């Protein structure tokens, strides 16, 4: 099955390389409502997911579903506009397929972003959080199955899933741009239902600061294949039970819209300096 996976990845890579001139060095996976900054890349080349052999297709409202190649502050980048979520019913190996394709294209740095719920009560909607570490609360892992030796070892280390070096750059850029930046641990739930207040209290006891339905599979796959990673969460809402009000996806999108500008400033600066 996974022996086949390597050839599937290579087919996707070959197609992409037939469309773009320069292979990218940095990949960016942009979360719900944060995809717009790909528009700022220069010399853009867009490839729809539906055109790439073996690529899954995004189904979520607000997720575009395409790769944008270009240069940003002089660096060759690839933006993933729209990601594959486990809650959509994809297999974990489909969720992380793009990361493997990035690796095959020669990417060695990844910036992942997401919209997340604030578990830490000192956070506020609109805050950005540097992801220092994560907790996988799902009972699944994208590396289950035969190991793809070409990418990495059977038992990859996760003791520094989020590169200290890249995180230092993110911190420095946040300060320079006058952006308030929280730091914390991201916990991955399957979704798609939001968590209950009892689950959020459990998250706090477990040491989580933000909760969401993405990122962890991609970061696990990136680390396995030796791609250095930095992660930033946009706290779009407070998690269940903190405020006495129901959660909805509209609130998530509205908050993401508000932070878009400072977020984009930060990312550009980070890309320039890593």
């Amino acid at each position: 099955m996974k022996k086949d996976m390597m050839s599937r990845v290579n087919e996707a890579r070959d197609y992409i390389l037939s469309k773009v001139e320069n292979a990218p060095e940095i990949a960016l996976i942009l979360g719900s409502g944060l995809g717009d900054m790909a528009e700022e890349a220069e010399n853009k080349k867009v490839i729809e997911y539906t055109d790439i052999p073996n690529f899954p297709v995004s189904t979520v409202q607000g997720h575009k579903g395409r790769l944008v190649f270009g240069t940003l502050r002089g660096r060759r980048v690839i933006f993933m506009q729209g990601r594959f979520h486990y809650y959509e019913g994809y297999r974990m190996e489909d969720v992380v397929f793009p990361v493997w394709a990035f690796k095959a294209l020669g990417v060695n740095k990844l910036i992942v972003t997401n919209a997340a719920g604030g578990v830490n009560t000192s956070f506020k909607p609109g805050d950005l959080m540097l992801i220092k570490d994560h907790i996988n609360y799902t009972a699944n892992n994208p590396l289950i199955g035969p190991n793809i030796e070409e990418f990495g070892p059977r038992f990859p280390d996760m003791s520094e899933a989020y590169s200290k070096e890249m995180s230092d750059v993110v911190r420095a850029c946040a300060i320079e741009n006058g952006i308030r930046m929280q730091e914390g641990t991201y916990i991955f739930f399957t979704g798609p239902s939001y968590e209950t207040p009892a689950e959020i209290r459990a998250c706090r006891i477990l040491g989580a600061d933000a909760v969401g339905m993405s990122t962890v599979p991609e970061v696990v796959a990136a680390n396995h294949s030796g791609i250095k990673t930095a992660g930033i969460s946009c706290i779009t809402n407070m998690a269940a039970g903190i405020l006495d009000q129901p959660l909805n996806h509209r609130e998530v999108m509205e908050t993401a819209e508000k932070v878009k500008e400072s977020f984009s400033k930060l990312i550009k600066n980070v890309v320039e300096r890593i």
Partner: protein
Amino acid sequence: MDLRARIEKASGYIKEKSGFEPEIGIILGTGLGSLGDHIEKVSVIDYSDIPEFPVSTVFGHAGRLILGYLEGKKVAAMQGRFHYYEGYSMQEVTMPVRVMKQLGIKLLIASNACGGLNPNFNAGDIMVITDHINFMGTNPLIGPNLEEFGPRFPDMSEVYEREMVEALEKTAASQGIKVHRGVYGAVSGPNYCTKAELRMMIKLGSDTVGMSTVPEAIVARHCGIKVAGVSCITDMAIPDTMIPPTHEEIVRVAESVKPRFVSLVKGFVKEVQI
């Protein structure tokens, strides 16, 4: 056949067969099926006769749907439920809830037999569920969203409606039945938890542990059905003092709770405003 079509086929059959429109759905947990004896029956349908319905395999679960009047209210009571540990998919486990939604229910009373983790509880006590923690590692809404049932990201900040919790407590008080409030933690099973797992669940805020209810409650909330939850504590599972109960002991305790459970649910159904 796709899930939507299966739901339509099953609910269509029940509508045609019974000509009855229930307003309250009741899921009867292990050993609690005898509530069905108190229903003035309009129609009784074996699960095996309902097209596309999964079939119950557990000893002690009768596996039939009773439609009729309880305390003057129109109810649909499930004698026997589908557990994840039996090997059903989460979509199958929760399919009856969506079928009952199509029949017209506005309120679901979900009951179960479970283990007690809170030191203030005793075997034979009844707990009104105020919230839950999903320890099952999966979610019944993973996969394409059924838009006609509910939103992609349903809120779970008040799965067990406060008014229902209070109404259950009021009924219990008027009947002189002692009830606790608490959080239900759901694990996949079928093995019972280890002591280390039980300690973890206690630390994370669970008052009880069981192998059902959470998937059904999530799917009910997704499609806008109110949920009331009642747990019967058949054994205490506090790791450092527990004596693993024999099956006979659990059956004995369940027998002793049954009259109080039946009386509580009947009283609640009589008084509840939907």
